[in-house]
Structure formats: C-alpha cells, structure tokens
C-alpha cells in the first residue's frame, strides 16, 4: 500500500471532530512557521537596512577623517618647517620677552613649565602655566595678542577672576608650544 493511500485511509477513519482537530493543528503549525519566517524576514530586513545606513555614514565619516588627516599632515609639515627655522626657540624666554615688553614683570606671580612627552612623535609638548595678578583688561588683551601672533605658540586655556583690588583682574593661563625631542 502506498504511503498516500495509508494517509488517506487514516484520515478517512478519523471522526469529524478528530479530523478538524488535526486540520487545526496543521493550520496552526503552518501559520506558526510562516509567522516565524515573516518575523525573521522583517527583523533581518530592518537590521540590514540599518547596518547599510550605518556603513554609509561610516564611509562618509572616513572620507571626512581622511581629509582631516591630510590637513594634519600638511600642518605637521608647516610646523616642522617653522620649528626648524628657529631650533633654539624656548617657551620661557619667549614669555619673558613678552612680559618685559608689556611691563608685566611685577604682575607675574609664578610660571610653571611642564613637558609632555608625545608618544610616536619627534616632539614634546611644552606647557607653561602662568599666574598673573592685578592686571587690567587692556594688559590682558595685549598679552594674548602677543602670544597669538607667534605661529608656534598658542593659548591652551585662560582663567580670569576678579582681583581683590577692583577693577583689576587675576589671570591664569597655559601657553603651549612644541619642541624637538633632540633639543
């Protein structure tokens, strides 16, 4: 007897109730499997769409970073040129010169030199923390302009407080430069 005949015989012998039960369970199974597959497809589809969207965003970011990297490389070259033009440049004398020219010697309370070793680089970062008391805003602006005029020094941060003697101010700032490790 063929399998199909056996199945048909089996089904024919079932009572109507059992037969309906069997049909319901088959339909439920098919519906469950289809439902599972549909869920899988929609989940996978939205996941892939999201991933593709992210990848495109990453690609755009990478292009931007490549451009920035080029700019950094150019800047590195420029700065290396500037540094090589004056290899004996030191930050403390640089600041002392400005301080003298602006007649701020009496106001400069302290200076603190810090050297930051930059890994995988030929340069060290030199930070000079300066504390100045009782100066006016014009003096501050002159000082900042003098520092900003130099292509190899920049102001990292400034802290301005009201001094005890008004309208004077107390200023704390950090100025930074790069110095060859060989110097």
């Amino acid at each position, binding site marked *: 007897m063929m399998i199909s005949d056996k199945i048909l015989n089996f089904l024919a012998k079932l009572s109507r109730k059992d037969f309906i039960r069997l049909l319901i369970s088959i339909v439920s199974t098919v519906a469950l499997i289809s439902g599972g597959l549909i869920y899988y497809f929609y989940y*996978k589809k939205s996941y892939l769409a999201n991933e593709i969207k992210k990848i495109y965003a990453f690609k755009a970011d990478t292009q931007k970073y490549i451009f920035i990297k080029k700019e950094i490389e150019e800047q590195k070259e420029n*700065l290396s040129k500037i540094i090589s033009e004056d290899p004996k440049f030191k930050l403390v004398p640089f600041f002392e010169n400005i301080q003298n020219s602006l007649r701020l010697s009496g106001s400069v309370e302290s200076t603190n030199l810090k050297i930051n070793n930059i890994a995988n680089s030929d340069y060290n970062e030199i930070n000079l923390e300066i504390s100045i008391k009782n100066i006016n805003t014009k003096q501050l*602006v002159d000082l900042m*302009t003098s520092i900003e005029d130099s292509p190899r020094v920049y102001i990292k941060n400034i*802290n301005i*407080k009201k001094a005890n003697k008004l309208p004077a101010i107390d200023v704390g700032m950090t100025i930074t430069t790069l110095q060859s490790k060989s110097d």
Partner: protein
Amino acid sequence: MILNLILPTEINGLYIFKKKQLSVSIKKREIFATVSTVYKKDITIEKSIIEPIVDANENQFDNISATLARISAWAGKVDFVTCGIQPELTIYMQSEFPFKKHDAIELVLKNEIAKTLPLNTENIVADFLIESESGSGCKTISAISQKENVLSLIALFKNININLDKIAPESLAIYEYLNLKNLIEDNSVVIDIDQSSTTIFCIENKAIKSIRTINKGHDIDDENINLLISDILFTVQSMASTSTEFSINMLPCKNIESIKKLIESESGKNVNVIDSISDIYSQALAYAAITMIDFNLIPDAYNYNKNLLTLQRFFAGTAIILLIIITLFLNNFIKLYRAESVLKSNKAELQKNISKNFKVKNIKSSPAALVKEIKKSLDSEISLWMPYTDKNRTKYTKLLEELSKIINPKEINISIEEMNLNDSFVMLKGLASDFEALNKFEDLVEKSNIFKMQSRPQTTKFEVKLIYGLSEE
C-alpha cells in the same frame, strides 16, 4: 472553481454569498425546472419551466439528456444544480437514536437500515434528516435509494457536461416545503399523485409519522384509476391512527377533480387540494437548499468521505497559499541576499579605505569600532597640531570681545566673578541683580553668533557654560 476549493462558500450549509440554483424534477413525460437565488436562509424564485420530454418512451436516457440540455440553456449560468430523485425510487425509514450528533448518526445509519430492510448496504445510498429531538436523542427520517439510481441521475447531467451538486428525494423535499410554508395541518394526510407513482405522507402532531409510495400514478388507464384510489385509501388507513382525526390533502395532478371526487366518495371525507403553488416539484427542490441543508445522496453514491473532501479543499487551499508564501519568501530571500552582499561589499570597501589611510589595531574589528578608533587618534592629533594654524586656533581675544558686548554693564546688571576659557567652551560664574537681568543675559547670548548656552541659570548667583557656536572664527 479554484476559489470554491479554497474558500468556504457556505457556513453550516447556508450559502454566505448569493448563489444561483437550478433545481430539476425529472418526471416520466416532462421535466420541471426552477431557477432561484439562494442567500443564507432566503430563496428567491426567479423563473420556472415545464419542459416536455420528446419521445419519452424511446431511448429515454438521450431524450432526458436532450431536455436537460434545453433547460440548461434556458437557465443560463448557475452556481449549483439540485435534482430530485423520484418517489418510486426512494424508500423512507424512520429511526430513533439515543444521540443526536450528525456524524454519529451517519456512522450507524447503514447498519440501522440493514437491520430493518433486506438491502445490501453496499448497493444503497442513504441520508437522513433529524425530524425531532428529545433530550439527548433524536428521531430521524432517512431516504434510501439504490446506488445505481443515483449514479444514473448523475450520468444524465454528466452527459450534458453539468456536475450535479445535490440529489434530494422529491417527496421529502415537498413535505419540508409545505411545512415551511405552513400549508399542512397538524394532523393530516398528504397525497401526491405523480405520473408513475403516488406518495402519501401521514403527519401527526406536525411531524411525519410515515411516508409510503405506491408504484402507480395518474398516468394509467381510466379502468385502473379505481384500483389506484382503493390502493391509496388502503394505504392511508394503514398509516393513519384511528384515534386521531386526519384531514386529507392532495397536490395538484392530472384529472385532479375526478380523483378528488372518487377519494371523497370512497373515504367520506373532504379532500383539500393544495393548489396555491405552481411547479411545486422543482420549487420544493429549490427550497431543499434551506430545508434539507445537510441532505445529499451524492457523497454516499461516490463513497465520498467528507473528511477527504475537506482535506482536498484544505490541500488545494494550502498548496496555493504555500505557493504565494514561498514566492513572497523567495522574493524576500533574494532581497535579503542582495542587501547582505551590499553590506559585505561596503564593509570591505570601508576596511580597505581605513587600512590604506590609518593605522588601526585590528582591521577585522566592527566598522563602528574602527571609525571610533580612527576618530580617537585623529582627535589627539588635532589637539596637538591644529591649534598652531590660524584657521584652528582659538582666538581668545575675539571671544573676550564678544563676551564684553554681551555683559555690558550699561545694558545688563550682571557681575562676572570668574571665567574659564578653553578651546571648546567658556564657563562663567557670576551674580545677576535679578531674574530680569538673567533673562536679558540669556537673550543676548542667544542673539550672539558665537555662543550657545548649554544650561539655563536657575538662580541669580549662577554658573553657566557657553559653548562655541558655528560662526566662531
């Protein structure tokens, strides 16, 4: 047709969409036909016809087929066809069962018939109607016919390419129809004299007590008519209870007036002729769609298992649904496959681009991790190298100038105690005279092209963080 295989057109035997039905009653010399519309429990009779069978005595099969073909052309397109089986080909049997489930009765019906009638159950077809229910049991009336009779009816229609959908016994259909239309009294005898047979129903307390068929009809010689009348009266006497008064009813037939008079004179009772309905045979069969919902002799003739019919429908439906689902799934598979390959190729391209331009620890890391890593390394490079350029240098003098415009003592009563500036933001600590001054300060910051206030000050002694906006130069 395919749709009928998949979708149910009926629920509990009632048609849920309007269906056109052709009902046919085949007599010896003519065929009664009615076209009706069936919708749920409503039957609308559209048209009826009595088509004579040409040369009825010779080559009966072909002549009936030809007549049926003419009727089919007259009826037009119909959804299903019902045919009556003649009274002389039907035996009725009443039974009582201790249960009332249709399936259960169906299983034991043939055994019941075999116990009562000397018939080989292999050669008969039978179906039943539940006549009355009492408690957990019920009384049924079964119609039994020879399988070959049913098959020859099916063959008649097959011959003209019509699939017969239902075969119902005419007498039972007529009784159910009269009952539905309230045309019979609670205790009565109904005599239907056909061309070749006479059927007599005995109704007691609105339920069929018995049905008998005499193989003689009005299509006999005048000499034999008296014999028919005495047969009828004898049968009526044997059927009807002596204690109950029965009225005698007759369906219209040939020579009705003379037959009526003869019965009246022989029985001494008035005979009522139910003549309010024309073409009662085919109309009663049309109404069988609602009066005899579960009744059909065709499945039994084919040894048709209802499970298998349902299974066939189920398989056909499932096959089509599966086909649709598989097509949809395949389509989705292809889409997913394409999306995956797009993702893969873009990932590879990204990794190639990154490895070409940046030094990363592990190129096999996720794209997000790779981009994060190169951003981190670039950020430290930017903070190290870029402040030395005019473009990227934070111009503190300009920032202070802008701040002095915002916090102008002539316009705003705010005193700044301390400010911290770095390359990304300014932190201000100060004291406002009142909230109005604070609001004005906020407005001025908002109008500024350089600063954006990150959090609003809540008290007059405040500490706010101003981040640099896009227009900062």
